[in-house]
């Protein structure tokens, strides 16, 4: 249960991604408590991304899980910083 699972985020992480993202993290949460969201490819984000990440964080905290964000850059970083997400997720 402790193995790290990496979710490779798509170029676009916005409202249109919610189905995919929810499925990806729910699948991961069945196997692990440690998740890494790899933002290497993410270029486009909107406020839905924040909503979805809050949801993921809520599920993880309920199970004392942990989530890290990898290689975040550009606007995605500006938006997560603005929302103070470093309090919810660790950056690597």
């Amino acid at each position, binding site marked *: 249960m402790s193995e790290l699972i990496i979710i490779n985020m798509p170029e676009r992480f916005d409202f249109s991604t919610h189905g995919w993202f929810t499925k990806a993290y729910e699948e991961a949460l069945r196997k692990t408590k440690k998740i890494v969201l790899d933002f290497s490819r993410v270029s*486009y984000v909107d*406020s839905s991304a924040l909503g979805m990440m809050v949801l993921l964080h809520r599920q993880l905290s309920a199970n004392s899980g942990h989530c890290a964000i990898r290689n975040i850059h550009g606007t995605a970083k500006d938006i997560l910083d*603005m929302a103070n997400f470093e309090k919810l997720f660790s950056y690597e």
Partner: protein
Amino acid sequence: MNKISKVLLLEDNASTRLIVSKALQIKGIEVILTSTLEEARQCFGDNSIKLFLLDVHLPDGMSDELIPQIRRLYPMAPILMITAEYDSSHMARLFDAGVKDFIQKPILPLLLSNKVQSFLDWSEVELALFRANENYLSIMQEKEQEEALAFFVYDHILHTHSCSIEGVDVATLSSGRFCGDILISAKSPNGNLIIMLGDATGHGMAAAITVYPMVVTFNAMVKKGLSLGAILRELSDKHSETVPSNRFFACILIEISLSKNTISIWNGGMPNVLIFDHHKQLIDQITAKNMAIGILPTNDISTKFETFPLNSIEYLSFFSDGLIENKRHKEQTLSFDDVYSIIAEFPSDPEYTITRMHAMEADLNSSHDDMTLCSLNLGILRQELSDSPVAKHSPKGNFSFSFELFGDSLLNDHFTLKLVELIESYGFSQSFCQRFFTVMTELIVNSVDHGILNIQSNLKKADFISYLDNRNAAISTLSDNQKITVSLSWESSKKSLFLCVSDSGNGYQIDKEINTSNDQTYGRGLGILNTLCNDFIYDQNTNTTHATLRY
């Protein structure tokens, strides 16, 4: 060699002819009987003759005169002479002309037939050898052509895809054939320098076809402004699409970012990267924590980089395995650690180090692998990168357009991204396009979700699932007369893109929205808009949001 062999016998004496032909037929050898030079000549078109058995004196002349013609027409067929004379100088002349042996009269049938058989067998072996050699020569020639092509491809790659930059010093020692080492560097649109040292498995053409797609992809992705992690994934995807699965590409990827003051390193299947401080002291080594590209599926590749503050490092050395493998010094085979220490002695002089390492080649006679040693002088590179800041050309020529979206067409998920593509085509930078995407999405979503669908503005953060449920429920009530109006206008003199979005909904009070969302992160996404826009105004009278993005 159980094929039936054919022998031409030239003999004017009828009884000798009979004895010889009988003896050979017992061996299963077919005999063509001739008794004059002329008769023999008439058989010369027959390509199946494998051996010539010639009497010397014939009614129409000496058989000597046939020999040059036989040699020419049947270069591989042995010629044996039947003779009763012992004129050794004549025999020597005949040997010189190409005769293989002599059979003395009176003829001993058993000896003759065994001798002929033995020559036939040997001639078969000789023919096989001759063909194998021809084959070998043509393979060698093909291989040479392939090597030349591999070099051509390699040269082409280097000339079209690499730029030299002060502070990146590279020394190479080729084994004379292309072994798949390549060093390439390119500047990202954000000003970062990205460097790749790769080593493809195999050599020659095999290495070239592995390297080629990697280099082309690397350049295209750096130019596109992709992050190092995304470039790595693209390389892996491209590898699995284009390169045979048993060919791998070990590489080191390095990104130097002056704006973030960082240097990030990824090592996949290459020797350690050596890190030095200002005093040229080795302070760290980055071992290969990843496998070469092509071994793992793209999704399993770790994009975790080792990142250091840029000003904590002064020199960096990295190299292909040819530099450290099979090295000896003072009769001792050197361990990799020994070799790393030797390389670490002169971190700023790759030419010297490579010459030194070559002298330590365990076996100088056998061909060695290519050696590539790259040295980064970060002092110079920092200067170089700050001296040549990214030129940011703002698009010339104003444009403006507006459009309206009604009913269900408000729900098109792809709309904003297509708008971004349009904006991008004017030449705006990637970071500006990213910002535009987010701002445009927020403006449209605000109008649709809150203005038209009347969804509570804090719900998206508070409970994304309820937000989705409410939204789905509200969508079913969407009517064709509900609309939003969007207008975009670029003023090049002001270097600003002006966006206006209004909707057919009831509007809102901006102060109230910002105040009620106490952490400012939500409330119609206004926090995001405030952060990303240079100006942001809501006009309650016209229910229109105005946002300005400065380039």
